[in-house]
Each structure stands twice: as C-alpha cells, then as structure tokens.
C-alpha cells in the first residue's frame, strides 16, 4: 500500500493558478471555493517590494487533527493515507474546519464567491447543490469519499484526486504525468503544472522521485510544530542549509 505524498517546488512555481483551475474543473468546485488555492503575499516598500506566493492543497496529514475532532467519523483516512470526507455521515458541524491548521476544508456557503450564483444557472435537484453540464462522469462520483458535486450542508476537501490515484497500477513509485502509464492517475494539479513544479509519489518507496527531491532539495513541511505530519513537502531552491523540520534528526 503506497503512502501518497506531494512535492511542490517553489523555485519553479510561477503562481499561475493552473493547479487551482484544473482542480476546480476535475472536481466540480464552485468558482472561488478552491480545494487547491494559491496564496499571494507582499512585504516591503517601493521600490524594494517582495511579492511571493504559496500553492496550498490539503496537506493530507499523517496525523490529521480534522479526523480526531470529527464527531461522526465522517472524516477518515484511507489505507493509503488519504484524508477524505464521507458526505453521507457529515453533519456540517465544521469542527474539522476549526481544527485544520491549514485552512483547506470547505463548507458550501449560501452566498457565492462570484455573483450571480452559478448554482442558479445550473440548478441541482434535492441535495445536489448544483448540476453543471460539465460535471464529472457519474462513475467517478462517490459521496462516501467526498467526490463529486458537493451536497448542501457538508464539508469538502482536496481528495488528492482519489478517483484517479486510487486506480493507479499497484507498486508504482510515482504518479507522473509524463509517463503514459500513470498520466491518467495523476492528480489534476500535478498533471497540469506547466513548469513541472509538482510531483506526486509514494513516500514509503525510497526510490520515488518525491523522496529524491525531498532529500536533494531539502523539502520542508508547513507548521511542523502542530505534529500533524503533512505529506505535502515544499522545495525552495535546494541546498543543505534549510530550516530543519521534524523529519530531521539532530546529529
């Protein structure tokens, strides 16, 4: 059983947001409710102002605080380590949203990010919050995994494109869009990334490209102090001198 993880290389990321829009297309996200967002920051004064950005998917923690707080066990981890939400069990209490240190869980609000509400243009029936003509194939929808059109009253989150990665051939080290054998199983945000700033693979496989990059370029995880143990690593130029993370052991 793989332990899927992601590496995001900030040295080559161009801040284009293709990860955001590809995720939204693949997972039928409402405009602006981004499972995969890119956050922009600026600091300093003219003329020496620094503009920077950080792509932010779900960190798919090994020790996810969202799972431990869920009162109905709607949020759970799969055998291959992906954190999912069972929409059939979720009661929309939002405890998980409070517990998540990374702000990557979403409750569908009545007020849309963009007016007029696209849900009115493509209305759904019953609990189906909307029904876009471009919605994913019926075979991919799986409310027990939080995949498909998000119903009213539940929380949703990045699934690492579980409808894709869970179908991957057994034993592969990486899901690489450049490899025709694994292209269709690669998460949308990784597959689309033009500068190839994203990599997806098995963290338990010492030979995987993701492990190679984490080692070669000094991968770090966000908010290690929470003890959540994210499975998303960031690279920012490589080299040995980096802020040490919990994965490191002091010599």
């Amino acid at each position: 059983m793989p332990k899927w993880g992601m590496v995001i290389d900030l040295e080559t990321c161009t801040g284009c947001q293709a990860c955001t829009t590809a995720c939204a297309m693949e997972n039928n996200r409402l405009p602006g409710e981004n499972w995969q967002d890119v956050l922009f920051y600026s600091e300093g004064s003219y003329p020496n102002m620094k503009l920077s950005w950080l792509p932010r998917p779900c960190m798919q923690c090994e020790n996810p605080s969202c799972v431990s707080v869920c009162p109905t066990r709607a949020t759970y981890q799969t055998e291959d380590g992906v954190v999912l939400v069972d929409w059939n069990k979720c009661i929309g209490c939002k405890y998980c949203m409070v517990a998540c240190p990374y702000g990557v869980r979403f409750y569908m609000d009545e007020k849309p990010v963009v007016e007029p509400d696209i849900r009115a243009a493509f209305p759904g029936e019953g609990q189906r919050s909307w029904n876009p003509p471009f919605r994913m194939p019926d075979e991919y929808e799986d409310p027990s995994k939080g995949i498909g059109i998000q119903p009213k009253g539940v929380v949703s989150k990045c699934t690492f494109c579980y409808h894709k990665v869970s179908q991957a051939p057994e034993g592969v080290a990486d899901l690489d869009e450049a490899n025709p054998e694994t292209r269709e199983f690669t998460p949308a945000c990784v597959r689309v990334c033009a500068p190839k700033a994203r990599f997806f693979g098995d963290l338990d496989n010492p030979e995987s490209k993701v492990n190679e990059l984490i080692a070669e370029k000094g991968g770090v995880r966000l908010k290690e102090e929470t003890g959540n143990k994210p499975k998303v690593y960031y690279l920012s130029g490589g080299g040995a001198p980096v802020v040490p993370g919990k994965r490191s052991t002091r010599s």
Partner: protein
Amino acid sequence: MDEINTSVSRRRFLQATGVTGAAAATAVMGVPGTGLEATSAEAQTARAQPNTVVTKNICHQCPARCGIDVYTTDGRVHAIYGTADHPISNGKLCPKGPLGVYILYDPDRWRGPMKRTNPAKGRNEDPGFVPISWDEALDTVAARLNALREAGESHRFALLYGRGWGASCAGLQGTFGKLYGSPNVAIGHSSMCSDGSIISKKMLDGNAGYNAYDYAHTNYILMFGVGFLEAFRPYNNNMQVWGHIRGRKSPKTRVTAVDVHVNTTLAASDRGLLIRPGTDGALALAIAHVILTEGLWEKSFVGDFRDGRNRFVAGQSVSPALFEEKWTQGLVEWWNVELKDRTVDWAAGITDIPADRILATAREFGSTRPAMAIYERGAHAHSNGIYNGMAIHSLNALVGSMYAVGGLMNQMGPSYGAMPADENEYMDDWAQNGAWKDMPRIDRKGSADGYLMANNMMQEVGPNHLAGNPYKLDTMMFYLTNPIWTAPNGQVWEEALKDVFIIDTSPFPSETGHYADLILPDHTYLERLQDAPTYPFQGFPMTQLRVPAVEPLHDTKYYGDVLIEIGKRMNGPMGEYYRALGDTENVLRHLAEGFRADPGDNGVTDFESWKEKGVWYKKPYIYRQVNGTFYRWDGRDYTIEMTEEEVQANLLKTPSGRFEFRSSQMEANAAWIAERTGRDPARLMFPIWEEPQHPGGGDLFLVTPKVALHAEGRGHNIPMVIAHLQPTVGGRGEAFCEINPATAEARGIGDGDMVRISSDAGEVTARARVYAGVRPDTIVLPMEYGHWAAGRWSKAVPTQHSGECTINQSDRVTGQCNYYTTKVNVTKA
C-alpha cells in the same frame, strides 16, 4: 442525504452518446498499464469506469494554440488537459485551459441566428432580437452585398476581425474581398494588438512578424514590458520553459524583467526594474552604449575595428572607415548620431532606474551568451514605440543572437496543399478593374494622410466612419472582435456604429453585437472543425486542428462556412467560386493533401491522421547562425553554409541583406515621417531616443495590462476567471486599481476606497488597492471588466472599463495603438 445515496445506487454503465462527428479522432480511455481496459468485463466488475472519449482540439483562450485533449463522457465535456505529444502544450496547460468547459456551456450563448427589430441603436436600446432561420440570415446578407456591389459601392462593406485562426476561417477573408471588391475586407486588429513589435523588427531585419525564440538554450533573457509569466505567448510553454531554465538547466538562465509594477514575472526574475512608462528605449540605448564602450559586442556577427582597438568612448565620434561590419549596417553612424551620448547616467534620468542597476544589467546582458532581448506592448505602445522597439531589438544583433542557438528565429509556415479552387479564375470585371481599387481603406492604412507604413488601423475605423472621411460604410461584419468595447475611447464607436448595418458572428453577446442588425453565431471552439497554423513559436512549421468534441449545442454555424455560404449567394463567378469550395471541411481536406508529400514528425500524412493527432509539425527550424556564419539543415545537422544572397532571401530580408541599425525602410519613408512627425530626417532612420507624448491631461500614467486569466473575448463572463483574475493584489471578484502608497496618501485615498479615474476621453471608477509594487507615477488597472452587454457575470462585476479613459493615439509609423500611455487624474470617488 437520501438523494446522495440514491445517486450512488443509480450508477450504471453508460454508453458514449452524443459524440458523433468526431469518430476518427477519438480514443476510448482505458486504464493503461493495469491490463484493465475500461471496456473489458473484468474492469467493469472491479469498478465502473466511465466510457470517456478524448478528442483533439486547440485552446481558444489566447493566441498560443495549445493542443488540448477534450474529455467527453455521456455527451458531457467535463475535462480538458494538454495534449501530451503536442509541441506547445506537452500535456500542460495554463490556468485558462481547463476553463474551456465554461465557454462551451456558457448559459449566455446565442441560441441561433437572429435579426434586430429595434432600429434605434445605443447602449440603452434593447435590440429586440428575434430568431430567424439560417437561410433568411444568409439571404439577407447576400442581398445586401449584391445590391451594394451592383451600385458600384462594394468598398462600403468592411469585415473586421480579431483572432484569425487559419485558412478555414480568416484565411478565406482576403479572397472574399478580392472577388467582391472591397479594400476593407478584411481589416485585422494587429494595430490594436502588437504591430509595434512587428514593424519595428521589420525596419531592422526585414521580417514583418513576431519572432520565434529558443528560450530553452538561452542563458540570459532581458524582458521589456512583456508579462512573460502572465500574458506573453505562448504562455503555457513559457512556463514550461521557465521550469527548465530556472530550475533544471545548467547554467541557470538569468532574467532581468522591466515593467511598471511588480507582477509574477518581476517577482520570479533575478532583477526587476521598475521603469517610467514609455522610456524602455532609453534603457536599451544605454545598454547598447555600455556594450560598445566596454567591447562586449559579438564581433563574429557585428564585425570589429579593423585594427581590433575599441574606439567607442562616451561622447566621442568614431570614423566609420575604421570599423568593418559583418552582418549589420550602420553601427558606427548610429554611435555617432545617438549612442555616444546615451550613457548610463543619462538613461537613469530618463527611466528613473538607478544608474548602478542599469550598468549591472548591461554588463550581464553583454557578457552572457546566448542572450536575448524581448519586448511587447509595455515597451512599444507609446508614440515613440517604433524607436523603443528598434532600440531593444538592436540589442539582439549586438550580442549576435539572431538565428543563433538560444536566440531568435522567424516562423516557418506549414506544407498545406492547394485550395479546392483558384480564385483568380473567378474574377469578373468589377473584381479585376472596378472603381473600388482606387478607394482608400476606411482606416487609411497605406495612405499618406493616414498611416502609410502600418499593417492595419482598426482603431481608426470607428472615428473615420463617424466623420464620413474618407467615406461612410454601409455594412460591417465582425469576426472575433468587439471594437465598441476594445477600441481605445470606445465611446466614439458607440456613436459611430449607429448608422451602419452590422453583422456579428460571435457565439456570445457583446457590445458590438448589441449594435448588430444580424447575429450569425459561430460554434464555440470545442464544437468546431478548424485549422490553426502556429503563431511564431520555435520556428519549425506546425499546424493544428480543432476537432469537435460534441455536436453543436445550439443552432450555430462555423464562421468559415458562413463566409462560404454568403459567397455562394453572390451573383456571377464569385458565387461559382464558393460552390467550388463547397464547405470548410472540403477546404481542410485539400490543405491536408500537402502532408502526403511532407509527412509530419508524428506520422500525420493526411486529413484523417491530422484529426487523430490534432497537429502536424516538422522539426527542426532549418537555419542557424554560428559565430557569424549561416547554415542550413542538411537532414542531420546544420552544415550547408549559406551565401549572402541566401541569407538575404530567407533571413535578413532587408535591402542590404544585413541587420540594419540604419534602416533602409525608414530612410525610404524619411520625407513622409519627417513631415508627419517633425522628426529629424538625418536621424529618424536610426534607433534614437524620443520623448513619448502622453495625452489625456492627467498626472498619472494609466497602464492596463492583460493578466494571466484573461481568456480572449470571454474571460470576463467566466465565473472561475472572475474569482481569480488578479491574484497578486487579491483581485478576486473584481479588478483593483493598483496605486502606490505615497500616491494614494497624497490624494486621501485609502486601500479599498473607490477612485475616480478621468482623462480627456472619459471617466471610470474602480476600487483602489494600495500596493507598494507599483510606481508612484502610475496606476495599473487590468483591462477586463466594464462590459455592459456581454453576459450576466461580466455585467455584475463592479469594475469599469479602462478603455473609456484611454485616449485613441497611435504610433504614426507602426500604427500601434498607444494603450499604455494615457495620463489620468485620480481622485477619491
């Protein structure tokens, strides 16, 4: 929750439906590598796999022409990814690419052909469109055009177009104008696009086109106002290249980017230079000055002093006889009339960039090979754009990057077969000798009293028609352009287009469409069969094909077929010509015949294989300059040395066959240029510095860039775009006016306040975003919103349109519309 569970239990194995018309280009998706193909019983037992069909198409949201795989299941298009074996997209996409589903399923699309019932036209007039049949629509157009022609006034029909894609759409227009008899069929939008670079390059190297670039092998890129990581085409491939040259290539390519605000390009570069708008030429001249004084020019391409001793010393003239030029012309004369005084300190005063940063940039650029200097509208959309462009492009010659590895090339065309019929056999007397041939173009392109040297002047069509000078148009047709909105000071067009019969062919409502008498809606791109030869990319020839993913959702017709159907209804031999063409599919089949004799690298040899692969291409680019010698590809390597005549015929297409710092073409038009601009006839043929003219009457520069999510012609009505348009300053839901903190404070403007932006052309409001990354003398407002007749989402965005306070001023030589040069007043609203 029952509904959800019910939907699960309803899962079934659906057969592909509604995807006819694309059979030859489809492939059923399986689960490659697992042995569990989707159609096998075993796979269906393991897990229901969708019966997905993938068709090849070309993205329509910018000029780049990325090959895309369109995923259709149960008749629904639900995913778009880059085509893996397409040379531009390579399986990748920019943020716009996946949003094509929104364009196909836009609920505001026209449903079919319509005619206007309210003769009054204006922003607040309801057109009163009513549905009509295609026959009625096409007959109406043909009757009108036949009558106009019989009255000897065929020149009063104009066809204006924006993004022409290929031979089966815009490629048909020129022939239509030739057979019908109008100098105004067709008028392109290039002067409102980027003719400033095309014509400034033409003056120097003789090629009237955008360059192809070998980014992957360059070690230095110097960018002037290009938005490389936002808008420079091909954006998707630029980002692929960026990952390579900035992350994986050895040595890492160094980048200096010049702009007026900090965008993602400047942030990701090694050095960002914030320049005073319109002064890029001064910076380039100072860099050239340093390259010469410090002896950094590429001697194998430019030549050298005969005795090898560098005599370029600031302020001192040099005798041309001492210098022997190789592939350039006029270097020492340029030095004497201009460059010798263009010191770093001089440029610092003009550009507002510190001298030490200019010097460092110049030394890096001059001493790193290969290096390239690239530029677009930021640099040349000013009254002095011709010279800014010439100065920047001259840097490419000084460092020898023309046609070199890691340098610049020109784009080769595809090996198309012949059209089904030769239009020259269908020319009647009027077509051959009619009085229309003596009529000027409505935009005065090519006229001494207009824009003698320009390619197009679409921005002048509205004002000229309004003035009835040179004449009044009778009928105007539009393809993929919406000038009532996109033209600078479009308010003039709103008035001008009230008294002319208008035919719009957009699939979508638009401001120009709001004035239409007839709507003949096109398919959207995912429904079209359409060719698209590449824009300048890597030089080697390539042409792509759009294959319909689904049957047209509505009663629409491909624009190319609309032209052909109108043509068939024209009297005389013109109608016969279009009957011989048949339809666009027949045209495409004939074009594809050319591939038989010249198969693509990917095995494309005919129409069917073209549909299957979506692209024909043939690598490599066949010319290369190495250390001052030009070679041609021999099939395996660049070994065939080219003569000077061959270089002139194929590459440096100037009268001298060299890269002309002293431009023969400028010199040939010196009297006209001097008369119209007051420029010095002794200097105007060189890349010189000239102060830009900033109209508008205000004190702040208004710069209105296109941003990464600007999906051509439709981004404004895509809610996913609206949610993400301007991420660098948090522009989500609307576009912000970036204003420097000091500038804002002096005007009592706080972050988030509404501001009034006004010029002599008009006034708009926008929300201020106080941003330390923008120059204090400049505001930046993306050109995106302010649509009033283009769809429900764009209408709801509060940001108004930058064009309404942009003055219609153009570069007299290039015709380039000066979009980024107006000065405005900004006050708290």
